[in-house]
């Protein structure tokens, strides 16, 4: 009977297996072709440590900003009944499509010294953003925040409105309600959105190299390091990628098992 059952499921299992294989085979190939013998050497190069540290730093700062800005934004989008909300939502989605390099150019046009805001920033505050670690973080926020907002807004829309109302009758204003009721209640959604956004920020390349350049230790994140190494020392690039994969599987796996259903 079991075999009959298996045959009946084949039209589902076959394409699903192809799908898995399609994604997993290249990862396996990376593993197979990795220069395991010299992995230690590759990873001990200062560039590797430096760029991984910088990636850890910038993606952490990015997540702080994404949480701080994106969570209230998602909440307002989720609860707004204004007809313009749909537009706001569409605008937030756009950076998903923009080629990252163009995103970097757009950031330069905004925050560069001659940019729409950058000139004013420099003349009044004396701050120049391009080529700084701050620029890396900005580029990562720009590409990662849409993933977060779209995903978190979805969970927030699922939150029963009556919880907000009850909190209000108990004396909690909008901010207190947001902080003590909404955020704790949608934590799983926030975790899922954070995973997507963090993954996107960690892999970010195009906007960063354009807006922030590739200065080792200051703006050369792991993907930029991978790119730089790819020419001279592809095995080091692959080793660095494997470390990124490992880190992200661990981080995502931990998140998933703790938060995601």
């Amino acid at each position, binding site marked *: 009977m079991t075999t009959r059952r298996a045959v009946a499921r084949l039209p589902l299992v076959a394409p699903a297996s192809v799908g898995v294989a399609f994604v997993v085979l290249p990862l396996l190939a990376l593993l197979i072709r990795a220069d395991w013998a010299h992995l230690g050497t590759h990873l001990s190069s200062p560039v590797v440590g430096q760029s991984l540290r910088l990636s850890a730093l910038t993606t952490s700062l990015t997540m702080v900003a994404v949480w701080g800005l994106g969570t209230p934004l998602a909440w307002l989008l989720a609860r707004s009944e204004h007809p313009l909300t749909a537009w706001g939502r569409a605008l937030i989605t756009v950076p998903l499509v923009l080629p990252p390099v163009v995103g970097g150019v757009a950031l330069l046009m905004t925050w560069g010294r001659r940019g729409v805001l950058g000139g004013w920033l420099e003349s009044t505050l004396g701050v120049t953003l391009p080529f700084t670690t701050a620029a890396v973080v900005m580029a990562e926020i720009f590409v990662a925040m849409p993933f977060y907002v779209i995903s978190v807004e979805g969970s927030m829309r699922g939150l029963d409105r*009556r*919880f907000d109302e009850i909190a209000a009758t108990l004396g909690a204003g909008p901010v207190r309600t947001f902080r003590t009721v909404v955020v704790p209640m949608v934590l799983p959604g926030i975790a899922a959105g954070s995973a997507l956004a963090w993954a996107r920020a960690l892999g970010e390349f195009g906007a960063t190299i354009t807006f922030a350049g590739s200065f080792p230790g200051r703006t050369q994140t792991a993907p930029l390091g991978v790119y730089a190494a790819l020419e001279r020392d592809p095995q080091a690039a692959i080793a660095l990628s494997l470390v990124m994969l490992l880190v992200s599987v661990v981080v995502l796996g931990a998140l998933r098992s703790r938060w995601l259903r």
Partner: protein
Amino acid sequence: MSAEVFLDARVEVVLGGFRADVALARGRGVTALLGPNGSGKTTVLKALAGLHTLTSGHVRVAGRAWAGDVRHLPPEERAVGMVLADPLLFPHLSLLDNVAFGPRSRGMPRASARARAAEELGRVGLADLAGRRPSEVSQGQAQRAALARALATDPELLLLDEPLSALDPQTRSATRADLAHRLREFPGATVLVTHDPLDALTLADQLVFVEDGRVVQAGTPTEIIARPRSRYVAGVVGLNLVHGTLAPGTPATLALPGGGELVVAEVPAGAGAGDELLATINPAAVTLYTAPPEASARNLWQLDVAAVTVTGQRARVRLHGIPGTDLVAEVTLGAVAQLGVSPGARLWAGVKATEVAVYPA
């Protein structure tokens, strides 16, 4: 329960195509708000809480204006407590922190808020479960915690929206006792929305019936049981209600709007032919027969069974066929079997004239 007006409100709210306009002027104590689905009970409660903005009207509680022509206090600035059918406890907080949420939000330091919360939980018999998460307690316990939470902010106005309706019958009964007990101690005004006559009769000092956004009848439970003024109200207190015009001549007869008639034993003093009257018939006084009987019942109709519901060994049979009204009869389970009472069956129903109570419309 003092007699001075403590809650003085007229709330007019428009929601899409629906419009509620309800006035309440009450002292302290419990007011039950009853009405069919969609009649606007929840709308009124939310307006009192500040969750709907008034189109016009006002809300004054304990002499303070909460809402009026230019004023609309947001809910968090009103001394209000609210409990809905769902407990809606915050799932990420322990019962204690749920109850402490209100005091904390109103600025009490953490330690005092928790002490206060522990006290409130104790009052509803949940002292032992203070550390539990909402998912770890039963529904009845959760609803008691929700009540404690609403009361922990010392509200002046307590709003209860069908607080027992989501509980299973056994839990409901126990929770009703806790609620009654706790409400007796509560010094403010309570507005209790309910569909359950027992809640209304056992918990409230005053009943207000709304239909389609308007008050249709208000009074003490005793007044209402004796003289329901609408089909819905009669249904709540378990009676059949008939609206008719006193016909001339004897025996005293009500002409029913659909064309039938109802013979009654006595009419209110001073009633004359042509007066509009209301009549109630206790369902237990309706007798069912499979064939027209030779009996003393002065009122006899051939009717269709529309529906049967059973509680214990007793069945309530809804009958169709008197123009303009349905008649409910209450019979034993034995009779159901013996008479073949099932939806679609055709039966004779008799009511003695002496079993009809008549009063002015």
